[in-house]
């Protein structure tokens, strides 16, 4: 439980962090809450030469409403997301997901950006980012770019993020009619299966639905089959149940571990899809 030696430097601004990252020649790692990185370093599974601490950069933190969108800085800790009055009112799904992460210690240190960059297959936020169709804002010394959540998560611990890039924040249109349902892994409180569903409703009828699942396979994935099935439908217990049955059918490479077999995870995806949809619908009215 002792890491290899490393250099540590604290970035004072985003520009400073980018410069330090560039100077590290690919041997640097960004440290925010440290709740994924530090355990890996202690187990010597990750041995970065340099840690660039971005936890105290004010411009990376905070939750703001802007032109009908909400922006959350990448350095915002889970607790702040979970307890944000703005999010609770306009987009409770992300606050719910944040509140379900780990335990109070984790939520007081862990950050949104850290979770997205690490892309643990069982992390909660990625499913929500997919459901909200969030834009992920990235910045490097060369410039900025925006990646859609569904393009960002590419595989096991793999995201569209270059070695010299930092996640600055996420931006999304708030959706009231959205919810997150999760089967907890009881040790880590990660998701064995977590489903975030966001509905765009016209009365009882679905204009469009976006659903993200995490925990089931190598990375968070949209349940497009269910989304398509729901589009244009009037929502009811039975239509939700029928659509949910399709959930996960197209997924391959289900995870399997001591907490849940592949078969069990496969069976749980529809269950939690249905629960997320039902809760989202309840918020629509």
């Amino acid at each position, binding site marked *: *439980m*002792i890491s*290899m*030696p490393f250099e540590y430097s604290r970035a004072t601004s985003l520009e400073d962090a980018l410069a330090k990252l560039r100077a590290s020649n690919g041997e640097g790692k960004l440290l925010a809450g440290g709740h994924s990185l530090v*355990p890996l370093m*202690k*187990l*010597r599974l990750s041995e970065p030469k340099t840690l660039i601490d971005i936890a105290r950069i004010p411009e990376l933190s905070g939750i703001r409403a802007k032109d009908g969108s909400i922006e959350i800085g990448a350095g915002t800790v889970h607790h702040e997301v979970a307890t944000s009055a703005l999010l609770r009112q306009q987009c409770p799904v992300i606050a719910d997901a944040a509140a379900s992460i780990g*335990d109070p210690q984790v939520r007081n240190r862990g950050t949104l950006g850290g979770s997205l960059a690490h892309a643990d297959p069982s992390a909660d936020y990625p499913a929500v980012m997919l459901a909200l169709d969030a834009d992920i804002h990235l910045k490097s010394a060369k410039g900025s770019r925006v990646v859609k959540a569904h393009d960002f998560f590419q595989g096991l611990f793999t995201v569209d993020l270059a070695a010299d890039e930092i996640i600055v924040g996420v931006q999304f249109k708030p959706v009231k009619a959205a919810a997150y349902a999760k*089967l*907890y892994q*009881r*040790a*880590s409180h*990660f998701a064995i299966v977590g489903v975030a569903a966001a509905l765009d409703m016209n009365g009882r009828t679905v204009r469009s639905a976006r659903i993200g699942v995490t925990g089931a396979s190598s990375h968070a994935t949209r349940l497009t089959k269910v989304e398509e099935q729901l589009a244009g439908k009037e929502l009811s217990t039975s239509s939700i149940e029928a659509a949910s049955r399709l959930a996960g059918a197209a997924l391959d490479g289900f995870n399997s571990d*001591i*907490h*849940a*077999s592949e*078969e*069990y995870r496969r*069976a*749980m995806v529809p*269950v939690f899809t249905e629960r997320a949809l039902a809760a989202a619908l309840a918020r629509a009215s």
Partner: protein
Amino acid sequence: MPTITTPVLPKLVGQRVKRREDPRLIQGRATYVDDVALIGMQHIAFKRSDVAHGRIRTIDTSAAKAMEGVEAVFTGAEIAEFLAPMPIGTPFPSPEHRAVAVDTVRYGGEPVAVVVASDRYIARDAADAIVVTYDTLPAVVDLEKAMTGKPTVIHPDFPNNLAVPLLPSGTGVSPDGSSVDDTAINAAFAKADVVISQRMVNQRLAPSAMEGRGVVAHFEPGKGTMTIWSSTQNPHILRTFIAALNGLGQDQVRAIAPEVGGGFGAKINIYGEEYVTSAISKRLGIPVKWIEDRSESFVATTHGRDILGYVELAATRDGTVLGLKLRLIADIGAYNMLLTAAIPTLTMMMANATYNIPAIRTTLTEVFTNKTPTDAYRGAGRPEATYFVERAMDMLARELKMDPAELRRRNFIQPKQFPFVTQMGAIYDSGDYEKALDKALKTAKWDQLKVERDAARAKGRLVGLGLAMYVEVCGIGPSSSLPTGGWEHSQVTIERDGRISATTGASPHGQGNETTFAQMLADQFGVPLEHVTILHGDTGIVKQGIGTFGSRSQAVGGTALHMAGAKVKSKMAKFAAALLEANEDDLVFENGTISVKGSPASAKSFATVAGFAYIPVPLPEGLEPGLSDEAFFEPTNNTYPFGCHISMLEIDRKTGEPTLLKLVAVDDAGNLINPLIVEGQIHGGLAQGIGQAMIEEVVYNEDGQLVTGSFMDYALPRAIDFPRFELAGTVTPTPVNPLGAKGVGEAGTLGSTPSIVAAAVDALSEFGVKHIDMMLRPEKLWRIINGGRS
């Protein structure tokens, strides 16, 4: 006439006094082993095996030795040159166990080399730089597979991996197990209408104290003495073993248990790291420190439970239990540790539970596997017995379609039967089991709960109720039952200023004895609690002791304290009598004064009498100066606390997730010194009992690699895992000690576990399930709900 204006001090025994220990603990002002820093101190790191079973082919320590800051590197063979094999504390046959493996490793995490370096980080890096190659041998993880001797025999002298092939006990078995008469047990089963038969797994657990283990050893060559600080439950036992293995006298070793952040039984054992650290300090003549990290703790600190029970329970149709057969197969892990072999014998001992069972036969087989050794874990043998018997009783009630409470009631040992000699030869001191059952039924509103359960079921919910009785053996007790001696020691000193210092050989590490023992002395001497200091955990200060385990500190240690206090009080009365010109038998100790009964004006302050005892001019005839005395208390028997726990649990029909809705615990620990601390002890025990039932399980893969090697995969219960506990109690004092106190540290782990599993079985009864092995993994329950489809 002056009137005494001192406020009347309340009697404290029986009061909910807040723990005096807590402010320093929660403010980070306590001193743990890792806080000990000595000049010139070096740091130890262990290189540990990453294979579960293998012959060491080569160890290359050259790179480690060459590192800047590395003082020394020792392989197992080099350590063996100056450190004898590890002793055990039981009379069972045991294979040689080196603190650092010499040629063969037998579990993942077994030490193979030791680094001594100038700081912890260098030591860790140097351990990484040691290159070990192994000829890997097949590993055996499953204990019943191990019993076949295939695919491997772990210790050549123990064929089929049997540490103990078969040890019988119970009805018809002579005390040494050599003569066995089956007549009674066979007759009992022959006349049974119903026989319940079930294989049950009591799974492996990781004790997971908040503070891991740690050692600082300081051998002073000039004096030839050793001081060892260790996170241990029993510094005096540690001293005995450390002295023996270092070739020192017990007078030459001082063992200190500073603040200890939890033990749960796993810090009774004397570990290889303690022997190695002390031996290296002696060899190099410098202080050395080793601090366990959390990853090490999962493999290097003993695990708990891991025992199979084949249970058969014979009864008549009306619910009268006739006989019990309990075949136990216990997983030792790779080696016997201090008490490993004895823990399952406590399971045998408690097979009689709370019932009149005319015939009982237990057998015990102990098996080596390529896993971390097991040893005591909170409850240590008794939760296992309770679990097996209570699960069987629950199954019997279900079979007979009888209320589980009613079945118990029909079979209880009755109050007039105490002292009760069990089929296993234990003598239960006192008990009123029906009273505890009734209190629990009333507290839980059992009949109403049934209505609620049935109403929930009518709506399609899977809700179940479970009930379990328990009796445990505590106040571990007479010297005939413990190889270390079964007494406890205390010395009480009235200081010159009238304040009180008292030592105890009990070594609290969360039990709150600094508070409870001070309450007792404050009452005994009529002084404020704040004037009493309880000293413990240091053999240089506490002259003698055994330690804290087996829920013994209050029943045994508390009694020794009380006895020592009585001796000092008697002497103090003589000094007071001289000052007051009164009869020593007519004195009253209260409100910080000593006065003459019936004439309160004739009084001296407590401090005045204390001062006089140390400057006795004139010295009263027949007295020596000073006020300090000691006592050893040897109980005549163990104590047998008991209780009844009730659970209500719901299982999600779609996912199999269990949620504990309610837990009612009625515990009878005899007389209570501090109900607040007792409740805290019960809460902690319940947490661990619930943890075992629902979320805790050590898992190895087939190669013997630990899969649950961190808290990401090993679920330690947290507050959100519990409902609000509902506690109540009955009080049945023990005649075994003058306090009437029985002990309560482990009780919570006994009843909770089987009551929760019973509730889960009840919740899933519509699927025809009769028993579910722990832990209640959601997938397991989901499979039952789905008809075992795979």
